[in-house]
């Protein structure tokens, strides 16, 4: 794998000393994060000079960000694409049929909520969860290949955009609206 020409994205796998791969040992990831936190955290430099405190702050910020990204499979996949110069969430134009599907899903959810039945909403959510899991499996399948073809990568971009939508849908369905 080559970083994109002009390499804009920083390799978050490298920050944690891990190979660039979708498959990841969660235990190893946690362990690396802990070891590096112990070395780099600002608390370890509380008595140091302003320059070192700044250095430690920057390094820990990078470390926390890398760890957060790699922990979550969807964000991990997004990052693997970014490392190839593809920015799935800003560059992907969604197909017309997906937008229509999304509108129809929303209408059904609204109707189910109006009817007030908990079962109706739960049934719709289960359907979306199923789609979400299928999308995640498909992404994993493509990214398991060390050098996927460009069309396969475009497909992953589209699936990642779908995942965002599914997550929002499920938040709404489960009433996980932001609380005050």
């Amino acid at each position, binding site marked *: 794998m080559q970083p994109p020409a002009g390499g804009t994205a920083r390799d978050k796998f*490298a920050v944690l000393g891990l190979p660039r791969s979708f498959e990841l040992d969660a235990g190893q990831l946690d362990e690396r994060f802990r070891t590096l936190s112990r070395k780099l955290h600002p608390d370890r430099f509380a008595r*140091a000079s302003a320059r070192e405190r700044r250095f430690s702050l920057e390094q820990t910020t990078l470390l926390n960000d890398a760890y957060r990204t790699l922990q979550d499979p969807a964000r991990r996949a997004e990052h693997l694409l970014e490392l190839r110069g593809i920015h799935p969430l800003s560059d992907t134009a969604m197909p017309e049929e997906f937008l229509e599907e999304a509108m129809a899903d929303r209408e059904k959810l609204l109707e189910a909520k109006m009817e007030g039945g908990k079962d109706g909403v739960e049934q719709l959510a289960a359907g979306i969860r199923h789609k979400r899991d299928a999308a995640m499996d498909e992404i994993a399948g493509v990214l398991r290949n060390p050098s996927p073809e460009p069309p396969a990568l475009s497909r992953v971009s589209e699936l990642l955009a779908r995942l965002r939508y599914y997550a929002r849908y499920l938040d709404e369905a489960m009433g996980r609206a932001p609380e*005050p």
Partner: protein
Amino acid sequence: MVALLEIAEPGQSQVKEACVAAAVGIDLGTTNSLVAVVGPDPSSGAGKPLALPVDEGSTLLPSVVSYREDGPPIVGREARRRAADAAPDTIASVKRFMGRSSADPETKRLSPYRFAEGESGTVRFEVAGRSVTPVEVSAEILRTLKTRAEQRLGTPVRQAVITVPAYFDDAQRQATKEAGRLAGLEVLRLLNEPTAAALAYGLDKRSEGTFAVYDLGGGTFDISILKLVEGLFEVKAVGGDSALGGDDFDRAIAEVLLAEMGREREPRLVRQAIDAARAAKEALTARDSVEVEIAGFRRTLTRAQLESAMRPLIERTGPPSRRALKDAGAEGKLDGVILVGGSTRVPAVRAYVQALFGLPPLADIDPDEVVALGAAVQADLLTAEKPQHDVLLLDVAPLSLGLETMGGLVEKLILRNTTIPTSATQEFTTFADGQTGMDIHVVQGERELVADSRSLARFRLSGIPPLPAGLARVAVTFQVDADGILSVTAKEQLTGISQSITVKPSHGLTDEEIERMLLASLQHAEDDMAARLLIDARIEAQRILRAAEHQLESNGDLLSAEERGPIERAMQSLRAAMESGDHRPIKDAIERLDHDSAEFAKRVMDRGIERALKGHTAAEFETGEMSEHAKKAYRALRDD
């Protein structure tokens, strides 16, 4: 500076720091405040944090300040005794007003205070012929703790870790920091109370696993979910209600009593009713009924009646607790629930917690002292050359941080429960042709609308080149440091014009006000400023020299002979400067050494990182391939 780079394993250095000044942990509570310290008191045993007796032999200093016309304010038990006779001049539970504006609902609740018309929205109390802010009242409490700890320890106290509720927002944190400064303390860190409690508890019990800390104090409720692994205390999620606590129980009970009495609610009577309610609540933790008497009015109060008055309040702790468990992904995976805060002594609260989490709560450390003890451990970690414990706390941002965008909507840049320090950048474009300025409005909270969020700061980026709408790009970066305090930078990408600010509370004191108060307090202090600066500079110089010597010894191989020369000369001139009776040449020599050893510092740090990664891979028998990754990691970390 170099050597300050303690890349060497903590505890490796054998040099014992002379005990010149103590760094303490302070729990600045709604009802009571405490101060604790690790070591050096030999009777406390090695490395154990200990709360100091500060008020009539007790470790609890009631957070009550009573102002007088003819003398300095009185703090603690004596102030509480004056409360009924001097109700409006005696401020209790001031923490509830920290960082609040005079329009806040907090100022409209049942209370015996007189509020002054404040400028700039700051809350002010009218006391004994003058007006004071919550920050000043809190500073009185901190000053009392500082003075009494100094008497107890026989050494000056200058540095402190002060605890705050995890759910405190930016304005409340800044206000607490200001109170510390005003009391003459260097605030090393604002530490979240549940995290402090977990630190004390985890160290004491040597526990590992996933824990919930349920912290119900006098005025705030916090819930935190933490993971404890090998000395690492990792906060996974926090939640709470920064205006819910034992005070509310007292007020709910007082409301019941006052309603029955049907008399006019003048301050003295309100104070008496609240005091009687608290006494009844405390008595009913061990009994089933109690006699209540207020100004000739008598009745019997049963535990069932008390609990029905408190129940709606206790139940308010449920939703934030469930949300935090969910955010942490810890549903059904808890190893224990730790109780913190005096209000968790109420039997109905314990029963509710047990039902909520499905686990019997742990309360074998004094819930009043545990927060201060944890703060003392953190103060030791941040100041001691050789800390007593090899632990590290990883905390989170309690509330989401965002910006106002078109239509009064919030665009979140940092989501709640993100591990700190953290940063995030988002690009915005202009919406009008030829637009040359952009207003940046920073908000905090979980809601979608700016109107429902807490406003933290506003500033304007000007000088954007006039371009068609959507062409100019402004990158806004949020950086949250390890204290949870936010700074914001906005940069126009084409010209590189930038603006940055550290967020200051919208309703706090102005910098000028703080400086004025600081000056006033310094003039009254006996400390001789110059002498104090000299002592501080000498201590700093000693510490830096020791650390530099240590690094030259263990990492000297990173330097060539030519590179080593300037560092050693700079050390020599620092030693010479220490002999002078002025702090300025010492400061200059420190800076010089700092400058001359910059490159060395960087190399030592790089080596440290490389070793950290390598150590790992060796353990995993992947030396060949993984050390390549280690190198990459080290390069990635250096790149910035």
